[in-house]
């Protein structure tokens, strides 16, 4: 089980770098894509910020929280696992997955442009969600 949370922590670390990179680059001129087309379109669109704050900064916050929670899970005493922490990771990843899906939808159907850094983030969120054990399927104590 620890290995799962270690992988989640690694994914969250990659997400942190991705989101921080985007936050720094956002106002540093056009951002050329290497795989997709339209990174700058996506990152300067009206959907790229909430109340004036770029979405990428919310991403930074999310990944720091996910990394922290996963780190606490990795270092916890296996005899006394915190199911509350697992549940928190699961629901946070689930909420992020809903938001990520919405953002991918905006790219596909409204902007008709894709940003590879945003797609990477969506893939990371999906992986973290799939890796987190669902609290509903938790084994009852013997």
């Amino acid at each position, binding site marked *: 089980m620890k290995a799962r949370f270690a992988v989640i*922590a690694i994914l969250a*670390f990659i997400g*942190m*770098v991705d989101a*921080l*990179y985007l*936050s*720094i*680059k956002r*106002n*540093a*001129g*056009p*951002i*050329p*894509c290497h795989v997709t*087309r*339209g*990174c*700058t*379109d996506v990152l*300067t*669109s*009206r959907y790229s910020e909430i109340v004036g704050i770029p979405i990428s900064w919310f991403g930074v916050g999310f990944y*720091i929280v996910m*990394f*922290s929670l996963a*780190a*606490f899970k*990795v*270092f916890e*005493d296996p005899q006394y696992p915190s199911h509350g922490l697992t549940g928190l990771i699961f629901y946070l990843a689930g909420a992020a997955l809903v938001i990520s899906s919405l953002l991918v939808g905006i790219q596909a159907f*409204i*902007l*008709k*442009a894709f940003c590879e850094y945003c797609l990477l983030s969506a893939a990371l969120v999906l992986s973290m969600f799939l890796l987190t054990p669902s609290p509903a399927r938790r084994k009852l104590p013997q």
Partner: protein
Amino acid sequence: MPKALKPLIVIVLAVALAAGAAVYLSRQPDQPEETAAATRADIKDGGHIRGPEKAALTLVEFGDYQCPSCGAYHPLVKEILNRYPQQLRLEFHHFPLVTIHPNSMLASKAAEAAGEQGRYWEMHDALFDHQREWSDSPNAEPIFVALASQMGLDSNKFMQGLRSPQLQDRILRDVEQGQNAKVDAVPTFFINGERVHIKLSMEDFVQVIDAHLPK
């Protein structure tokens, strides 16, 4: 060592490492494989010129009227031309990214059609100023016609221009020049043939122009 200390140390180290990595990556050139030759471009002809004929600097812009970032840069480009009225001129080349911007080619044609009646730059400004009104429209043509008629253009001539294969060829020549100059994002700027990266801020624009002005 208290139990909670280990994860806390790991978290602090990871955040610091991630910040370092992001700053390092953001400072890398956008195209590391780009050779010195590719950062210079020989853009010989075409393009529309705004500013004095004998300006010391020519700011070449490859742009797409439907691209939001080109729209965001537009007021900065106008402002920089106002700040350097004698030293700087703009040479605008069409680079419509038709795969992601379905109205961009028609918008370029609208600018060219207005140009046929001597009003290219007015339409250029209007297209950017009204970008949000036509950008997502499934039928942008009536919006362009309305803009043309607000400018007092001859509507029939304007409509002919929108369907003119010659004007389309002119736009495609610009696109070819952009491809030869390895333009891969819009807007892309060159100053006197040298590719320059300008941030979306007036301060950066001024800094870049000042750095290129003859001493």
